[in-house]
């Protein structure tokens, strides 16, 4: 990243904020599901997978049981495949227990147009039939293009469409932060 662009970055969530938000989301998930026994947490690659793992670990801390966690790649279900060059696929790993009659919590880093989640719902449909599907996101930046809303939100951050929301996670980027880049350079 060049320095001119770095200058336009502002941090909206620090590492501590992210940790607190994921813990709170974990509590909310358990509260709503009345326990952790039926839960399956599925992250959407790339960063949603790491957030899913953190939330699952937090739920295990709270409830004292292991929560099945996996990843769900939605590339093959995207509605914009024909507008871009073919993309490499990410890993899909569904826990061995399956998702039938479970409460599936989808986890993504940023909720924007809602199209990723629509694709994820289609993908889930081919994997099994959950009792319920819920959605947890670290950042809801608005600008929905489909009737989709999150059940658990780390932080609502109103943005303009030209801005970029950048989520940095320790597992990939060596630090935890959510930053907003001015659209002028994006």
């Amino acid at each position, binding site marked *: 990243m060049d320095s001119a662009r770095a200058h336009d970055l502002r941090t909206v969530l620090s590492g501590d904020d992210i940790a607190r938000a994921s813990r709170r989301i974990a509590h909310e998930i358990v509260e709503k599901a009345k326990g952790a026994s039926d839960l399956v947490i599925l992250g959407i690659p790339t960063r949603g997978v790491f957030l899913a793992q953190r939330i699952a670990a937090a739920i295990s801390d709270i409830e004292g049981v292991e929560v099945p966690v996996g990843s769900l790649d939605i590339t*093959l279900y995207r509605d914009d495949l*024909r507008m871009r*060059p073919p993309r490499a696929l990410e890993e899909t790993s569904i826990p061995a227990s399956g998702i039938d009659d479970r409460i599936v919590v989808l986890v993504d880093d940023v909720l924007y147009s809602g199209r990723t989640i629509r694709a994820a719902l289609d993908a889930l449909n*081919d994997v099994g039939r959950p009792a319920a599907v819920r959605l947890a996101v670290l950042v809801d930046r608005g600008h929905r293009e489909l009737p989709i809303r999150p059940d658990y939100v780390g932080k609502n951050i109103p943005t303009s469409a030209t801005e970029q929301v950048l989520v940095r996670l320790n597992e990939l980027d060596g630090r935890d932060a959510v930053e907003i880049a001015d659209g002028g350079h994006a």
Partner: protein
Amino acid sequence: MRHLLSAGDLDRDAALLILDTAAEMSALSDRSVKKLPTLRGRTVVNLFFEDSTRTRISFELAAKRLSADVINFAAKGSSVSKGESLKDTALTLEAMGADAVVIRHWDSGAPYRLAHADWIGGSVVNAGDGTHEHPTQALLDAFTMRRHLREGKGDLRGVRVGIVGDVLHSRVARSNVLLLQTLGAEVTLVAPPTLLPIGIEHWPCEVSYRIDDVLPKVDAIMMLRVQSERMKDAYFPTAREYSRLYGLVGERMRLLPEHAIVMHPGPMNRGMEISAEVADSAQSVMVEQVANGVSVRMAVLYLLLGGAKELSA
């Protein structure tokens, strides 16, 4: 990538992208719903001038699992048997809106001609041309080797592969040598001198005439089919002699290291290049090769057709 004509056209990154994509596709085939919406509305034509059941079925299944519409066009009993040229067949398919043509042809180079003659706008996939190439077979072989010998990740650096049999008529051998070289494997071809093509010394591989010398030193051994339909001259005295000198029988198989896998592109001639004991042994991975073929062809079709047309050109 717009066409897949030769295994030699793939650089290491492109080959690994196909293998990694195939790995994800193969995970999908364990699901109860084995269908993806990815190529909905796209049309794939299987244009088969030469008989082939397994390759055609494999491509057909791959296209259908990705929700593409599939048209099977066999030369026998079609306009081709009435004397239609490749060009006119191609123009017909283009007029019908084929997004990809999977072609198997008895002439080496036919897929290249189809891809470069400006007759059709879609992608061309070589499903075997004459004695030239069969790139998706090489990809599925590499995929199978990677799964057994490299835990399904990365390239094949240091993997030693023996390819035994009718190299002269084998498009499988040529494609495999090219792809395996790209992926860093070391290939030794084993055949009687009469079944090696002219210019073999320029291929990026070793050549041996004695199978027993090679077996103890390989991680994978690939037995090629003796293609009697292409054997118009006398390449070896008798089938029995070939089988005795080059056939993989149980006793020979025990020369292989314990971890080594036995491969065959199919269809096999049991009792000729491979004995029933070997074909049915635990080291043989032929059934898995068939399953992997579907995954690899799904990956190829997705990477050729899944994205925007203008950009992938």
